[in-house]
């Protein structure tokens, strides 16, 4: 699959946002993922051509960051936090049960292509532990049961809404937002979850 003219123009558009266009490389690689489903050789070559770099230089950047995938990602990316706090609070058990339930290992995709499962590092939602991310949206206070229901719903194509966020789009659509192309959904979801408001709640009823 080659990079089509529309995508190529959008890659150029990203580079042009910055005082020095190489700064656009990270969002450009996000855009490559959104159209190609992973970082492909064609995508690397297109970025290199636009930025005046070698393919090796772009590849060296792409392999450094964990969000860039060399294998095709499923329709949805499900990340289970197994850093210490989430792991202790149950993230390890959730990850183990999801592997069993989906019959996949870490960084593998279900046979129907719907879900890629990965364990992720701390996602800055420790007060909602254990946390599961779907296409980088928060699913707070998960249990093995809720996480299994979540992936079942994703595989069944049901509407799924993040705990603090929007209705779940696909992983590719999410990557397009990360590239800097808005999907107009900032107004979905709440201001904050309950834990974010815990300090404020202690003042309820105060004079």
């Amino acid at each position: 699959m080659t990079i089509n003219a529309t995508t190529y123009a959008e890659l150029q558009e990203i580079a042009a946002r910055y005082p020095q266009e190489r700064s656009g490389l990270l969002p450009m690689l996000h855009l490559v993922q959104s159209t190609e489903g992973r970082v492909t050789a064609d995508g690397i070559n297109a970025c290199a051509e636009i930025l005046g770099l070698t393919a090796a230089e772009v590849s060296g950047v792409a392999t450094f960051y964990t969000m860039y995938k060399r294998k095709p990602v499923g329709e949805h990316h499900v990340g289970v936090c197994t850093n210490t706090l989430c792991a202790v609070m149950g993230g390890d058990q959730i990850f183990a049960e999801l592997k069993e339930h989906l019959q996949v290992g870490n960084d593998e995709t279900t046979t129907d292509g719907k879900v890629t499962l990965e364990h992720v590092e701390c996602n800055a939602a420790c007060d909602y532990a254990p946390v599961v991310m779907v296409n980088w949206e928060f699913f707070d206070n998960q249990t093995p049961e809720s996480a299994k229901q979540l992936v079942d719903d994703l595989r069944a194509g049901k509407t799924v809404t993040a705990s603090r966020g929007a209705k779940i789009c696909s992983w590719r659509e999410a990557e397009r937002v990360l590239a800097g192309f808005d999907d107009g959904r900032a107004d979905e979801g709440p201001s904050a979850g309950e834990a974010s408001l815990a300090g404020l709640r202690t003042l309820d009823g105060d004079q």
Partner: protein
Amino acid sequence: MTSPITPVLTANWGTDRSWTLDAYTAQGGYQALATALTKTPDEVVAAVKDSGLRGRGGAGFPTGMKWGFLPPYDDNDPQSRYLVVNADESEPGTCKDIPLMMASPHTLVEGVIISSYAIRAKQAFIYVRGEVLHVIRRLRAAVAEAYAAGHLGPDSPAGVDLIVHAGAGAYICGEETALLDSLEGRRGQPRLRPPFPAVAGLYARPTVINNVESIASVPAIIGKGADWFAGLGTEKSKGFVIYSLSGHVTRPGQYEAPLGITLRELLDLAGGVRHGHQLKFWTPGGSSTPLLTDAHLDVPLDYEGVGAAGSMLGTRALQIFDETTCVVRAVLRWSEFYKHESCGKCTPCREGTWWLVQVLTRLEAGNGSEADLDQLLDQCENIAGRSFCALGDGATSPVVSSVQLFREEYLAHLEHGGCPFDAAASTAWAPRRQSQEVHA
């Protein structure tokens, strides 16, 4: 008793559509910007210096002084200087900037405009970790609203442009010079200093890099006055901060209070350690800060107090673990994190973190020997202080402190031939323990 909670940054998080310009303006938003614009840039810098604000990203360096390191502005030099906001919140346990940007992105945007005006930067960036899709939506929407309202843009009073830039998953990019390399489209690896970013930062131009919470505090300082801010907190740790409680606590979450509050006071507000359990160990400021125990409940949580207790205030990421938690498991997992996130630039960190994981894995499985503990500490001595950046130092903090505090527990793994703990008892869904089972 008056509550120690002082909502400033968190004050509007519970209001309807708090992330929108309308809601932010309705509660006084962007008035601090108007105030700042009546002052000279140097007066704004002076106010931030006078407030005593110290960096909220972990290191605690005085923000105003950092701004003061920029070379004097030269009207004849048309080249740029930059403000970069470090929104790469990734330190395990740290979860304050993400809810701030989710609930009130305009607080940060207003802070960016005032701070850019103060340091005379015409281009600013918010470098936000890529793994927080909805936060990025909210930030970008807020920036678009601020442009439309005339707060941002070359023709706005401050003349500032602001780009929201998504990262791609690398803890090291929270290190400010690695962040700059990443923002330049490179592998995120730290730079040799000097030159410091204030002299040669982004694109080798003078650059200020500040944490989200630091910049978000600026509107309140300008709006309410440096004296008001300096009147909160302790002598050398002034102002208010967000404390993030997580783990085995009844009501985990964000608690905004003046610097110097104690964990005992915070736990009182949060309903205590989860019912029927006792505090075993905790991190005061993320996994890179040495562990503390119930002996440290009354330590003032300011830079000096936590430092005197042998740890660091860090990001005030208070991860609470009760007696069901195996400290060896906890430390092994953090070590695996540092191993994964080591950027590979320097040998002590790149190789050392792998060694730590190997030895800890052996110990956790009960296959090691007591000599392995000395081996671990020896490895830590060869990492800490010898690594290129603070990631290596941070990797040793949980290891060294846990061996000091819980040596017997490491040995128990050897005697038991594996972990003597039941991991299920630590989970959020573990059966609630009856009060009669509580140890005295």
